[in-house]
């Protein structure tokens, strides 16, 4: 059985979502992963979209966060100010999904510009909900491709804070969530070291090798002593995922 890198990422993220977890999801891979988890092992997962759908249960993948399907299947539909003020800010939401164009070893994220802010090489979309998702969700999951362009020594712009410059940073900044606890890439899985907060490779996807991971990382990559292999996607996982994506 074969699968794509994207399928491996999506299945790995979906597995990390369990129970009654409430989950702040954007569109794209996170939404796919969360909806896959609801169809697999986490039927009670609470999906919250920043467009105002609380407890959405889409029967197909939404085309955008404005998809009527989200409003029509939600437990409650609220205004955008309410989503951020009453739901995200107080830390009610367990998991927030984010991605980025750049991240550093402390999982600080850049979605604003590549290059100089006033004269950028690439102008990116900007912050959106990310700074407050990174600050206030109880935990943050990251999903992004593992490349040297993305995994950089220093991000060009800190759009969202991971662990700042290391231990104690989040506390000093008054960020109440635990921060990024899981980074799922197309090569493997990284998790912050409990002491140094530095992202550490804890698992390699089937077929990926450590040299590739190091080569795709712009800093000297820390590797867990007990580096494991990510269990491959099961037939059920792949079937459900493919049906979900096809249905969109």
């Amino acid at each position: 059985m074969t699968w794509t890198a994207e399928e491996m990422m999506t299945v790995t993220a979906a597995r990390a979502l369990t129970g009654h977890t409430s989950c702040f999801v954007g569109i794209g891979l996170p939404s796919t992963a969360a909806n896959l988890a609801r169809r697999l092992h986490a039927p009670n997962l609470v999906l919250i979209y920043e467009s105002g759908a609380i407890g959405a249960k889409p029967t197909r993948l939404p085309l955008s966060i404005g998809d009527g399907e989200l409003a029509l299947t939600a437990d409650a539909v609220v205004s955008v100010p309410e989503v951020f003020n009453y739901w995200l800010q107080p830390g009610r939401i367990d998991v927030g999904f984010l991605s980025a164009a750049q991240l550093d070893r402390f999982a600080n994220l850049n979605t604003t510009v590549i290059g100089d802010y006033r004269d950028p090489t690439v102008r990116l979309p900007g912050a959106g909900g990310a700074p407050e998702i990174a600050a206030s969700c109880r935990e943050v999951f990251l999903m992004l491709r593992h490349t040297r362009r993305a995994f950089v020594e220093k991000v060009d712009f800190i759009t969202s804070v991971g662990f700042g410059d290391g231990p104690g940073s989040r506390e000093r900044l008054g960020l109440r969530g635990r921060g990024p606890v899981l980074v799922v890439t197309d090569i493997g899985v990284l998790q912050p070291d409990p002491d140094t907060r530095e992202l550490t490779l804890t698992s390699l996807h089937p077929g990926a090798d450590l040299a590739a991971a190091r080569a795709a990382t712009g800093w000297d990559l820390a590797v867990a002593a007990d580096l494991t292999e990510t269990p491959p996607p099961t037939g059920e996982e792949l079937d459900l995922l493919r049906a979900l994506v096809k249905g969109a």
Partner: protein
Amino acid sequence: MAELVGLAEGIATLVRDGDVVALEGFTHLIPVRAGQEIIRQGRRNLTLVRMTPDIIYDQLIGAGCARALVFSWGGNPGVGSLHRFRDAVSNGWPVPLEVEEHSHAGMANRYVAGASGLPFAVLRGYAGTDLFRHTANLATVTCPFTGEVLTAVPALRPDVTIIHAQRADRAGNVQMWGLTGVQKEAVLAADRSLVTVEEIVDALEPRPDAVVLPGWTVSAVAEVPGGARPSYAQGYYDRDNEAYRAWDAISRDRDTFTAWLEALAA
């Protein structure tokens, strides 16, 4: 009381050169047709405000209507970048574009403060980000009870806010439903407002998840069926994804964009 007007008349009377103009609609009910009428009427030096500038703002920017953009996320949702926006920011084409960027939480709270008649709003946001280094309109405020330091954002008070809704009645009472985003706050925060609607009906029957803006809070209402295309209008039409993808090709290149612009004007 809201006046019932044609779209061209509404834009002509309510939107002036140099205005701060907000077009809101959080990926649903985006007032696309109203934005294109602003292009047709050749408004200039606008400060455009929007949480999620997408293709309609790419069009306004590419047409040279804007001197500044205040926003929190700019992109072509599900497709990629806004090429006209990038060209304006990186190359000042067709005119230079000043950028003031925030987070969604910050923008939403700026509208809330404007709607509430307060000069600022308080939130837990931006802490530790480089936004504090590049966005002038940010400050901190200390809680007088706990001593905790929080982020303050100034109220947004657009000269005019434009939104699209499903329905209005003949008295100009506006009804929208589904994901209604920040539209109520954006209208209540503005000096003037224009609402385009799918249809004008005799009576607005109450319905679930509906937000009603009484006619006396709105300057003008224009019946513009399909006014949110290619975005959604729940109960009327779905998103036209093809149009979003097509925009990527049209907007990538100044010439193809210019041709599109001439076709719009024609």
